[in-house]
């Protein structure tokens, strides 16, 4: 009667959860909650580190380090970058999504994938391609160019997914109320895209704050590049820490702005249910200009970087394929990617399970803590882990375990979002049906819940893998001596202006990322509205 305790435990669970009609998971909610709280506390480490460092520095020193022209310059650069890049990405992303989803664009199926494709090219590879072709690229406008081309798919993908499932009946009602196509777009369609747009804009802005490689390559200074420079010169200086705390404030501010501007849009979302397919607007004379515009965008964002990388590969010939160098890098990247994906999925499971089966303020708070952490740039997480490990646990500094832990924190939400939707497809009723058919709670969980959420878990793991393969900043800070991944190897080569030598690594990263990007694109269609 091993299940007797779980039954008595469950009684407590309903009171701790504070919320009504919830089923009893096979393992007690309290046990799960303890694990989840530990994970959440762990994920708050970087934030805690920044707060502690700021407090420990003392106000006078901190003020002296923060209020100086250099920080003002960085602030100006960063704000300007965000203010220009985010609107541009919104225009390209939403415009592209609208053309692909709602107009009679020829070949819209191909365009739908083509516009998501730039996501397969890491921003620092994109930057490398451009710089290798136009060495004079420098400063804010180059930053804007590369960032926009790299990140507009972050707006495009959710916007396209949302547009594809907007109820056309609402637009038809608007038309019957006397609105023309343009008025329908601006007064009915665009407001419904609000969640997708604010979410996409937040992602773009956070990427701008976190990106190191792409901006370092074109010598454009942001907070992240400045922190990295500080770290490389003084290792763990107070100045770097203060820059990090300003950067963290920036990220938190963006989160608040996003929550505010999302406003009540969440509640106005249309319900589920069968709905007609949206009608496509005829383009007429705009067909050709639209095709040309999309062609130009795709060529700049995807075709050109790919071609440049290939060109460097071809120019380098066989000399650049040094098996002793790139095979270990490839293997280590795969090892980190797979391990990180696996660990992240395992860590995300209790959180997702609690969120789906036991919703309430408690699981909301847990999710929020992870959400906040995931908004922190890799450089801050890296810096926090370096300092904490050196001070408290010198044994783990520069171990692969620490690097994996950083990956888990950075990419946990990718797994979480997928697991949540997967678990939602394994409702408790199925679990109960299995139990009423004589399966013990554990067996029912294994054969039904776990089995049904497995595809979603795999999808989430794939996205974590994609993130790890293309991660540069935290990897540079935390990787053990002698470790080389595709990203770090690419970085050291391209920093030495060895464009040919870096090309194979860029190619491998793109090849590894391509299928995952396609997967992400496919998934966005399914979980639109999330």
């Amino acid at each position, binding site marked *: 009667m091993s299940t007797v305790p779980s*039954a008595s435990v469950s009684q407590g669970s*309903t009171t701790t959860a504070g919320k009504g009609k919830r089923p009893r998971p096979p393992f007690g909610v309290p046990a799960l909650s303890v694990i989840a709280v530990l994970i959440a506390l762990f994920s708050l480490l970087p934030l805690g580190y920044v707060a502690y460092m700021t407090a420990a520095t003392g106000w006078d020193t901190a003020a002296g380090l923060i209020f100086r022209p250099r920080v003002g310059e960085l602030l100006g650069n960063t704000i300007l970058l965000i203010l220009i890049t985010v609107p541009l990405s919104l225009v390209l992303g939403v415009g592209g999504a609208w053309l692909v989803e709602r107009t009679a664009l020829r070949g819209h199926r191909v365009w739908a994938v083509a516009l998501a494709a730039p996501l397969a090219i890491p921003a620092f590879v994109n930057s490398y391609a451009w710089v290798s072709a136009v060495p004079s690229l420098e400063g804010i406008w180059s930053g804007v160019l590369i960032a926009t081309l790299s990140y507009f798919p972050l707006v495009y993908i959710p916007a396209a997914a949302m547009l594809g499932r907007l109820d056309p009946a609402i637009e038809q009602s608007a038309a019957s109320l006397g609105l023309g196509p343009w008025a329908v777009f601006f007064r009915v369609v665009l407001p419904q895209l609000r969640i997708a747009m604010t979410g996409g804009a937040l992602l773009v802005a956070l990427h701008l704050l976190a990106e190191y490689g792409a901006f370092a390559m074109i010598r454009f200074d942001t907070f992240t590049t400045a922190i990295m420079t500080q770290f490389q010169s003084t290792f763990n200086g107070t100045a770097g820490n203060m820059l990090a705390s300003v950067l963290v404030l920036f990220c938190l501010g963006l989160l608040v702005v996003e929550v505010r501007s999302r406003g009540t849009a969440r509640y106005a979302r249309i319900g589920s249910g069968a709905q007609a397919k949206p009608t496509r607007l005829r383009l007429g004379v705009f067909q050709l200009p639209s095709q040309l515009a999309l062609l130009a965008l795709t060529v700049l964002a995807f075709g050109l970087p790919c071609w440049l990388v290939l060109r460097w590969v071809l120019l380098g010939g066989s000399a650049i394929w040094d098996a002793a160098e790139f095979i270990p890098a490839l293997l280590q990247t795969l090892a980190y990617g797979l391990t990180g994906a696996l660990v992240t999925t395992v860590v995300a499971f209790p959180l997702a399970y609690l969120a789906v089966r036991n919703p309430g303020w408690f699981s909301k708070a847990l999710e929020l803590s992870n959400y906040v952490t995931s908004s922190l740039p890799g450089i801050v997480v890296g810096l926090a882990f370096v300092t904490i490990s050196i001070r408290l646990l010198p044994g783990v500094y520069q171990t692969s375990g620490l690097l994996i832990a950083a990956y888990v924190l950075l990419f946990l939400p990718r797994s979480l979002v997928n697991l949540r939707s997967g678990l939602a497809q394994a409702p408790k009723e199925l679990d109960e049906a299995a139990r009423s058919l004589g399966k013990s709670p554990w067996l029912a969980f294994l054969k039904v819940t776990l089995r049904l959420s497995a595809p979603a878990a795999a999808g989430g793991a794939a996205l974590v893998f994609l993130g790890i393969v293309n991660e540069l900043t935290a990897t540079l800070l935390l990787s053990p001596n002698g470790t080389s991944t595709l990203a770090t190897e690419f970085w050291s080569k391209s920093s030495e202006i060895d464009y040919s030598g870096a090309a194979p690594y860029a190619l491998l990263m793109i090849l590894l990322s391509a299928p995952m990007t396609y997967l992400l694109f496919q998934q966005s269609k399914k979980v639109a509205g999330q």
Partner: protein
Amino acid sequence: MTEQSPSLLPAPRIAPAIASTTDPHLEIIDVTKNFGAQAVLKGVNLSVAKGGTTAIVGPSGSGKTTLLRLIAGFEYPDTGSISLNGRQVAGNGAWQPAHKRHVGYVAQDGALFPHLTVGQNIAFGLDHSALDGGRRAVRDRVAELLDMVSLDPAMAKRRPHQLSGGQQQRIALARALARKPELMLLDEPFSALDAGLRVATRRAVANVLNEAGVTTILVTHDQAEALSFADQVAIMRGGTLAQIGNPFVVYTRPADRATAEFLGDAVILDAWMEGSLATCSLGGIPVRRPPAQGAVQLMLRPEQIRIAPDGPIRGVVVDTDYFGPETTVRIRLAPKPGAGSDHRFPGGGEVITIRHWNASITKPGTELCLRVVGEGVAFPVEN
């Protein structure tokens, strides 16, 4: 609805349920259940006879599904106890988890496993090692079960999403029957089906369970379903069972006004009770076991009020709703001049709603003669 059958004698198909409570299959005693601050079940007592069919019927939110989940073992009662075959399975420190109760459960949407075929779904609960002959025996058993629920054995290879709603429900039933449970719980299994399919599926399920001799508890919010399916109906309201009895009794002699109105259309009139005769605008109506004397409320079922040329009561048609086979007719009863001064003799003038098959004689404005057949039910006046 024939006009010549005023008989209100109990129909013969009922009664074993209550007679054999000495040896109940399922016994629920004083069960309460709270979710947080919300009391969902406030002391439920129910006894179900072996082989009987019980319907728990009530509006949504009355706690009926919670009760079913307690019986299945998905939830734990706060107080009270649940016994199966005389053995306590929940309450007073005893606890038997769901998978050891041998209780079949069919959920509202069937809850078929989407990742398994129909055959694998049905075989899910089978103890493979217990079946001699391995795979072949499993396949035969699946075919047998599919046949039992009148489905083609070839269906075993299909996926749940390829089936219609009615088929899914029958598969869910076959899956639950595979383990030969002695008690089957049905949680609104027909409510997701459209009207025509619902009746056919309900009848098919009732036949299967009846032939298998399985004690059945059906939870539903549809009173017609409850009355037609079960030989014992328990009406749930606000976390307690307001009345338990055979369908005929609960329909014709509801315990209170709310139950009366929940189970079907009711004509409620002010009346004056003296002895066992209630006087109202429809004349003197006999009442069995009146709860009070003096002012009461009298309940009649619409079908007890007939249009008859020689009827003693007059009324004028106000308006009608035509439904095809029958017409709902609202009739204003003729006022009785002078009677209004005496509170013992209601003054008439009330509007009542009855049903009639012939729309041509119920045009608005027509004066009709009415007759009441059978007994009424009196309730104390609500304040």
